[in-house]
């Protein structure tokens, strides 16, 4: 199972909004237990919902506040805690005033000692919880940090690639050959520029206007020279901003792009010629 896909499916948001059925809820809880990324994402959505509600919330009137506080009062009086620790101990402590028999002094001491023990135990539990909580948050922070570092790394690589392309472009001796779809039956408005350095034989390409393709096909660039058309790489129509580095072209009177089956062909399918540009 792809965790990232699961996270971005929107299911976790529905979970937080209480909009999943019992089975789906169980599934999300099991996934969260298994994958910390999912658990963290849920926490982030919960935080987001609180922030959104807090920001757009409305303060209830003082009348309601008073009414609620009154109700709290009477509700707490009605409430009887489940029988446990506190009760019997307190009764015994009350024996103290008045002449305490010797055997009772021991009892009082024992009670006092156990109260102290109980207090220190609960303090220990409280601080252990506290510690655990901080540790958990620290871990989350570390993980976030790692994600950021990774993103930065990716951006660095992208920037370096852009830099190299740019440098090549500036230092080389490139001719611009515009390839147009005008007069061809496929895409009248298509426009792709080829930059060709005759000496170094390097070819760069920049898409200006080129329609998207279905996933079974690719655009392929051809250098048409003395030996006929030579395929010099596939063109990514979605990459509009960047320069695409193509294979070397030793000779060319013209450049052209055709639509070929996924992965490209040995020789061009001329019926699917999209753009054509002659080297001046």
């Amino acid at each position, binding site marked *: 199972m792809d965790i990232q896909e699961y996270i*971005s*499916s*929107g*299911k976790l*948001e*529905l*979970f*937080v*909004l*209480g*909009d999943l059925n019992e089975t789906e*809820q169980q599934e999300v*809880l099991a996934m969260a237990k298994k994958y910390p990324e999912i658990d963290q994402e*849920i*926490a982030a*959505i*919960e935080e*987001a*919902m*609180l*922030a*959104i*509600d*807090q*920001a*757009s*919330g*409305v*303060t*209830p*009137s003082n*009348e*309601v*506040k008073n*009414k*609620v*506080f009154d*109700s*709290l*009062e009477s*509700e*707490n009086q009605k*409430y009887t*805690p489940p029988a446990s620790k506190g009760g019997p101990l307190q009764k015994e402590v009350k024996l103290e005033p008045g002449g305490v028999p010797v055997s009772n002094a021991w009892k009082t001491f024992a009670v006092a000692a156990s109260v102290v023990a109980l207090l220190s135990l609960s303090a220990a539990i*409280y601080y252990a*919880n*506290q510690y655990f*909580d901080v540790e958990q948050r620290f871990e989350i922070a570390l993980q976030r940090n790692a994600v950021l570092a990774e993103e930065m790394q990716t951006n660095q690589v992208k920037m370096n690639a852009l830099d190299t392309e740019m440098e090549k472009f500036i230092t080389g001796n490139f001719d611009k050959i515009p390839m147009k779809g005008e007069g061809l039956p496929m895409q009248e408005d298509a426009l792709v520029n080829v930059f060709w350095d005759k000496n170094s034989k390097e070819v760069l390409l920049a898409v200006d206007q080129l329609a998207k393709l279905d996933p079974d096909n690719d655009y392929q660039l051809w250098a048409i020279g003395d030996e006929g058309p030579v395929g010099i790489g596939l063109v990514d129509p979605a990459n509009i901003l960047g320069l695409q580095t193509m294979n070397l072209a030793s000779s060319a009177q013209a450049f052209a792009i055709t639509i070929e089956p996924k992965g490209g062909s040995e020789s061009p399918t001329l019926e699917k010629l999209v753009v054509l540009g002659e080297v001046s």
Partner: protein
Amino acid sequence: MEEQALIEGLRARNKQVQEYLYEKYSRALFGVISRIIFDREIAEEVFHDGFMKIIKKIDNYDESKGRLYTWMANICRNSAIDKTRSKEFSKRNKTNTIDAYVYGMESETGTAEAVDGIGVKELMEDLNDEQRFVMECIYFKGYTHTEVAEEYSLPLGTVKSRIRSAIKVLKKKADKI
């Protein structure tokens, strides 16, 4: 106060902790309700009952299933939705629409809320139409995502991903405030 201490205090029926809970979350929780119920009087009544339900049912809250706030918000949201579906309510509030709420309420109720909140309209203004529509159906009207998908013939996946992106946009907006 840490969430764990808060929960323990609520379970022990500690009045101070309960009041702290009110101070900290009443605004957000009342927001959840008044998004769905526009009549202020009814909304406050539902809020009172919802908050008391939280206090009484705190022993049913299960930490392993989500944070306290999420549990509380769902109680309030469900109480509000139940109210809108009750007979008594539909008689009184036939003409309410989302637009009347989002675009009409601020002027009706005066400036009190405008000062302490950004208002729903402003919160929603960064959403695109598709995100806003889905959020209005689910977050305001209390539809389930399957109801929205069926009623408006949208693929389930589309509804889900719109909710996801909408929450992201809203969070960004909320953080700016």
